[in-house]
């Protein structure tokens, strides 16, 4: 027994992090991912073109304005506050959903996904019905937090389900209280999912205009819309949008940085859910806060407006059905194409590191930080210059959705791919599969939950999108969002209600599906 004296050597750890290759990415993947990311860079090119049209002095002049500074500060404050509160509330909700044995668990999970189905402008409008005085920072912060929380809740719940409880038990035996044990042992495991969700929230709150315009909190998107709307000053709008881009890049870089520090934690046992005891109303209240504030309050508000309406018009059923059809078709196409475009970027980011990889991924996220009107106009610019025959076709509109919402797909697809061990790919290669076959039969197959989550997130967002849709839709085609817009613009709440209801209901379908996917939000 030679083992006796020679201390057992450590397992020969391969010189690579599991789930990640140590060698550089293959050139074809880099090129493909760069091409896909380039689609998201179209708005950036447009903004730079527009900005350089203005002279340097004009640029500096605009930038130095007190108001631009104020708008930027407002934007940063709102985005930071909303991100932080969503992170906390979402994580707490996810914890309750996975660690507390509540009745109707499945339903509660589903319900907590529902705020996703309510467009932010609708939520803000609904709140104004009840509380007309709502306005400013705190109102915007509150409503946006309620609407955005599911972006954190869902991935964190998925990550918690897969997280090993061994470490938390160890931490408890070492004298940590439950909260500190959670922070020390479990939080690092769910952090990538939480941060990825928080990133979506942050970019969303940077780019949203509907909610802040309703609740009268002046952010950069407000300034951008004002520049287009009153001054017809595209250069100034472009400059403000560039400020948004810079903010977004900082956020994306920060997310990448904090994601990187996480290592995988082995361990099999998961934490058993415990009975809530007498405290269950507390848990349920916390869980239902977002659905109540994000769905019930606004929807009931809309309904009361409907009841007050003098002009209850007959619902134009064929038109409603047509709008539902267009909404579904466009959202579906956007989801499929966004996922296809996101795949190479996500695959690259999941498996490889390096400055180039970081840049490609960051560029892929840009579109999400820009308001729809900027992305819409940039695609007008791009389509007329590059593919005029497709201008004002659904193709360009779907493309705009892809640019706007691809980041939602990138995040979850990346998590899905990262959770598939690279050794499975190696094994399939050794068993005679080509790289594409191996990818398709193994990696993509196993990353399917992540891919599906990405597709559903894109679909939900595309259904609710308004400004780019207005600009790019084929003449004569209406979605539920544009129909809703054209009616609320005229105070026709009676006529608008069916479209609002249909929009929320249709967007609930992917939201419900989303809550049902046991996501693989774990990353190595």
């Amino acid at each position: 027994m030679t083992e006796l004296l020679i201390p057992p050597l450590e397992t020969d750890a391969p010189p690579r992090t599991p789930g990640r290759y140590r060698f550089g990415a293959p050139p074809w993947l880099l090129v493909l991912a760069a091409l896909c990311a380039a689609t998201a860079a179209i708005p950036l090119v447009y903004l730079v073109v527009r900005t350089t049209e203005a002279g340097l002095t004009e640029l500096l002049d605009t930038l130095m304005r007190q108001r631009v500074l104020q708008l930027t500060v407002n934007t940063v404050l709102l985005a930071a506050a909303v991100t932080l509160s969503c992170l906390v509330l979402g994580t707490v909700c996810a914890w309750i959903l996975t660690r507390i044995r509540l009745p109707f668990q499945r339903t509660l999970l589903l319900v907590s996904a529902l705020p996703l189905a309510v467009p932010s402008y609708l939520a803000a409008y609904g709140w104004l019905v009840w509380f007309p005085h709502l306005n400013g920072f705190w109102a915007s912060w509150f409503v946006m937090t309620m609407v955005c929380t599911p972006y954190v809740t869902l991935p964190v719940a998925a990550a918690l389900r897969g997280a090993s409880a061994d470490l938390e038990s160890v931490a408890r035996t070492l004298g940590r209280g439950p909260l500190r044990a959670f922070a020390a042992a479990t939080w690092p495991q769910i952090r990538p999912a939480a941060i990825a969700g928080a990133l979506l929230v942050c970019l969303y709150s940077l780019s949203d205009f509907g909610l802040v315009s309703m609740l009268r909190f002046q952010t950069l998107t407000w300034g951008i819309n004002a520049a287009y709307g009153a001054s017809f000053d595209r250069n100034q709008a472009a400059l403000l949008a560039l400020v948004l881009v810079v903010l977004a890049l900082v956020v994306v870089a920060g997310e990448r940085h904090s994601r990187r520090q996480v290592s995988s934690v082995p361990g099999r046992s998961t934490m058993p859910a415990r009975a809530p005891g007498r405290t269950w109303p507390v848990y349920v209240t916390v869980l239902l806060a977002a659905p109540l504030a994000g769905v019930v309050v606004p929807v009931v508000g809309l309904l009361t407006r409907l009841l007050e309406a003098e002009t209850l018009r007959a619902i134009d059923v064929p038109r409603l059905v047509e709008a539902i059809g267009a909404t579904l078709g466009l959202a579906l196409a956007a989801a499929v194409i966004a996922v296809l475009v996101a795949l190479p970027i996500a695959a690259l980011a999941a498996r490889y590191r390096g400055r180039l990889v970081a840049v490609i991924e960051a560029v892929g996220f840009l579109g999400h930080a820009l308001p729809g009107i900027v992305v819409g106009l940039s695609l007008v610019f791009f389509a007329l210059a590059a593919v005029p025959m497709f201008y004002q076709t659904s193709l360009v509109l779907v493309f705009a959705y892809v640019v706007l919402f691809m980041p939602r797909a990138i995040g979850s697809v990346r998590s899905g791919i990262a959770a598939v061990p690279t050794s499975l790919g190696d094994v399939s290669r050794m068993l005679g599969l080509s790289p594409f076959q191996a990818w398709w039969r193994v990696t993509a197959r196993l990353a399917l939950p992540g891919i599906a989550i990405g597709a559903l997130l894109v679909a939900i967002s595309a259904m609710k999108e308004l400004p780019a849709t207005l600009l790019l839709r084929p003449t004569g085609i209406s979605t539920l969002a544009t129909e809703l817009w054209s009616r609320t613009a005229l105070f026709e709440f009676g006529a608008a209600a069916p479209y609002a209801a249909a929009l929320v209901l249709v967007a609930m379908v992917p939201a419900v599906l989303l809550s049902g996917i046991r996501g693989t939000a774990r990353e190595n």
Partner: protein
Amino acid sequence: MGWVAIEALSVSYGDTRVLDDVSLRIPRGSLVAVLGPSGCGKTTLLRAVAGLLPVASGTITVGGRLVTGPGVQRAPEKRGMGWVPQDASLFPHLSVGENIGFGLPRTKQNDDLYCEPGETSGGVGGLLAGLTRRGRVARAPVRVSAPSSHLAAAPISPDRSRQTSRAARITELATLVGLTELVDRAPSQLSGGQAQRVSLARALAPRPDLMLLDEPFAALDPLLRSALRTEVAALLRGQHNTSLLVTHDQEEALSLADFVAVMRGGEILQFGTPADVYERPVDPWVAGFVGDTVELDGHWRDGRVECALGSLAADWMGVQSRSERSSGGPMGERGAASAPADGTSVRVLLRPEWLTLGARGSAQPTTDAVVTAIAYAGHDALVSFALADAEKTAVRARIAAPDLPRVGDRVTLGICQNALAYPLE
């Protein structure tokens, strides 16, 4: 000699050279173990052979086929090699049977490759066909070339035959690794040992020319590990497979392999039979890595070394040129390097089991010692002694359990083999 030939292989990660000019020849049908500590580059070597990572320079040929060379980098899937990773890496979305059959083509045309005479009849014939089959020279289609007997044995439609042959091969492999009952299970329902067997069966199914095993037993518990590795070695030999096994466990390497290559820092230090590597290690590091040693200072004098144990008959293990020891082929009798001048300081090296209690059977002068400690291990024990010399030099001997002395006993130590003398570094 040299079914698999690795010549002057170098691999770099960025600026770091992980494999440096490695050469290795693997005789057909043999099991070669690459043994080395963590980070020595052995897994990198395996991945380079598999084609899973690019090499900086060097060539790899299998059965005369160049798979890696200047301008040649065959894709992993076209190398005809089997791969058994450390963690089994079963496809979680496929059943055990599907995992085993993963590498077996589904299309009819390709499937004929695997449809051999006698195989479609399944059962004993199929099993025999599998067992007697040697690694294929090339992955050229093997035609169904024994028409009369084959057709008579399997008068079934081509479609059916395809299904049958694939299913039969899966059953055959499942039987081979003793998991016939589990083919419909999901991988998550398997124990670690079972999963590793499935992984092995999966790699064997397409009849690879070369099996690559990356520490396949490392993740298993010790009892299961030793049982499974004996079984696997027997199985690989039974299949007349040529295999390359990577491990950091010297017992595993010595007990399983026909030849052992000891690696350190991206180089192969020694390549030989297990006995060769254990009893005649090329340097003290290799000696220490493959087993326990007793090391003493001494002086060379006319074929003997003078050390604390007295004047011992010794073999001079002087430096061989690097090219000599890494030439790749297993070294039988290594050409003795010329002995040093008398009086040269040398490092004297013995294995603890070469020391015996009492003078009986000793081919060497005996010496007196006091027992200072005993590390008991059931069947034997490692006993520490202090010699009677001025420095009370400590040595250790492996003593069979029935003969164990007690701490404090005065004993006489004999030595049953020639000591090994190495130049001082």
